[in-house]
């Protein structure tokens, strides 16, 4: 594990993401790795099962591009901006082809990752009572407490073949540090067979060791580490760049129009060789406008012992 796992996104996706895999690119509004989604589109992966609590624009793009046969999720929308029309075309009109869906609540999805990360056969959850959700998802099963006899529900473990986690920084062996919104990144990573860590910056090991409590993902479970600045755009990386709300709003009309969506994919994914090209295409001024002023955390004293 002491060896370097640094790779290009192209190589990491080519080697670790296979047609037919279950793939989770997680991140609750924060740290959604669009760069990995675009690379998966660019490499024309197929028949993927995509898992995310909130599919967001990233999965609208991927599903619009035809990489997926199934979607596992808990909230389907473009937060504050609209809907995910590429996904809806497939669900509502089988256009251009059907999309299988498996639907939970937020807590159900997070609990599935928890069970997966913990190697538990199920997680109990107090939800779904008198809801129709279990009627359309037989994977949500009633279970009775051996103590008070109360009936709760169980959800099964979710173990992606590959989880992509975006972090602000990581070292070459994959120790990744995250601050700001935590989502279910850690649980999704531990639940996965293979883990790709994409980060804004690859830092030296000492930077990680200077604050071990900040480490969310240990190199132990990481297969590849990729440095991809602005890799979350239009999502954000706390302290590095803002959420591009305009992009999210502008996605609404593009998403509504299959032709416009295909044109967007051509221009911003297929015609580009890498995320670096995408960053260059927007131009420095664009990124400068998204960069926040500095607001540093405090420091804490770990102490030098012995």
């Amino acid at each position: 594990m002491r060896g370097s796992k640094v790779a290009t996104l192209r190589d990491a996706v080519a080697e670790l993401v296979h047609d037919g895999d279950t793939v989770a690119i997680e991140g609750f509004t924060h740290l959604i790795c669009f760069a990995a989604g675009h690379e998966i589109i660019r490499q024309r992966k197929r028949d993927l099962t995509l898992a995310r609590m909130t599919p967001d624009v990233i999965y609208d793009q991927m599903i619009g591009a035809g990489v997926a046969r199934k979607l596992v999720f808990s909230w389907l929308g473009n937060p504050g901006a609209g809907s995910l029309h590429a996904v809806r075309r497939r669900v509502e009109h089988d256009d251009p082809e059907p999309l299988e869906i498996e639907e939970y609540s937020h807590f159900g999805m997070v609990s599935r990752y928890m069970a997966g990360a913990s190697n538990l056969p199920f997680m109990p959850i107090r939800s779904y009572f008198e809801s129709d959700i279990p009627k359309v998802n037989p994977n949500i099963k009633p279970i009775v407490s051996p103590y008070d006899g109360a009936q709760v529900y169980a959800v099964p473990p979710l173990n992606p073949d590959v989880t992509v986690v975006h972090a602000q920084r990581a070292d070459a062996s994959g120790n990744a540090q995250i601050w700001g919104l935590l989502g279910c990144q850690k649980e999704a990573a531990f639940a996965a067979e293979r883990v790709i860590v994409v980060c804004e910056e690859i830092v030296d090991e000492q930077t990680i060791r200077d604050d071990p409590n900040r480490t969310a993902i240990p190199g132990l479970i990481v297969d590849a580490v990729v440095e991809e600045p602005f890799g979350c755009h239009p999502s954000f990386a706390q302290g590095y760049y803002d959420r591009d709300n305009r992009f999210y709003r502008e996605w609404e009309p593009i998403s509504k129009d299959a032709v416009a969506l295909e044109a967007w994919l051509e221009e911003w994914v297929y015609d580009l060789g890498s995320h670096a090209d995408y960053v260059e295409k927007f131009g420095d001024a664009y990124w400068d406008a998204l960069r926040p002023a500095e607001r540093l955390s405090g420091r804490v004293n770990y102490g030098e012992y012995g």
Partner: protein
Amino acid sequence: MSATDDLGFSRSEMMIVASARQLAAQRVTFVGIGLPNIVCNLALRTSNPDLELVYESGIFGSTPKRLPLSIGDPTLVTGSTAVTSMYELFAFYLQAGLVDVGFLGAAQIDRFGNINTTVIGDYAHPKTRLPGSGGACEIAIHARKVFVIMRQGQRSFVEKLHFRTSPGHSGDPGHDRARGWTGSGPTSVVTDLATYVFDDATGEMTLVTMHPGVELDEVRANMGWDPRLAEDVGRTPAPTEEELRILREELDPQGVSAR
């Protein structure tokens, strides 16, 4: 936007203001996406400066410098008092009963406050695929009080839901008490026309006040059943100048909410 109509405020503004006032006596409020986000930030500046906002993205003690478009906005994180993982948010806070008020919106609601945010039409082949539950099903079950905020009409206030995403009252209060949930189910509904509470004896939605300029026939014309009426249906107090100023100038300069 219709904020320029003769009343001097739009029905959406009335809806937001009326909802914000209901937070006056509340403490820990779970903030989801959209309107509740504006409502809670208005309440913080008017009816309840001590309101504790728990964002569905896992943020506590936030003092946002701008009105966040999404509940995951970075401005909510910087300078907040705590950030938590989604598992802990749903397990340690919501499921554990620490949330006093949860907000729900709805595409469809029935007279007992059951809510559909999943599909219009058949689930397998929906006419309209809606977002689904997100955290709504958990909020409905665990938040001690549930405030519903939504526009009302024949298509949204329905006799029969196409899908029950989040449970409300059953119509049998005895059954409801026996469920033993942390939450007591839907408490109030605020729409662009009126405000409602749920009757203790029957669990049925009950008209309490109508907004300025709204009469009973319009309310009736915009729901799929004949509404139960409070003994004396009152009038929702119009938004104050201050409430409108804060809403328009500080919280929603684009007038998104006022449409």
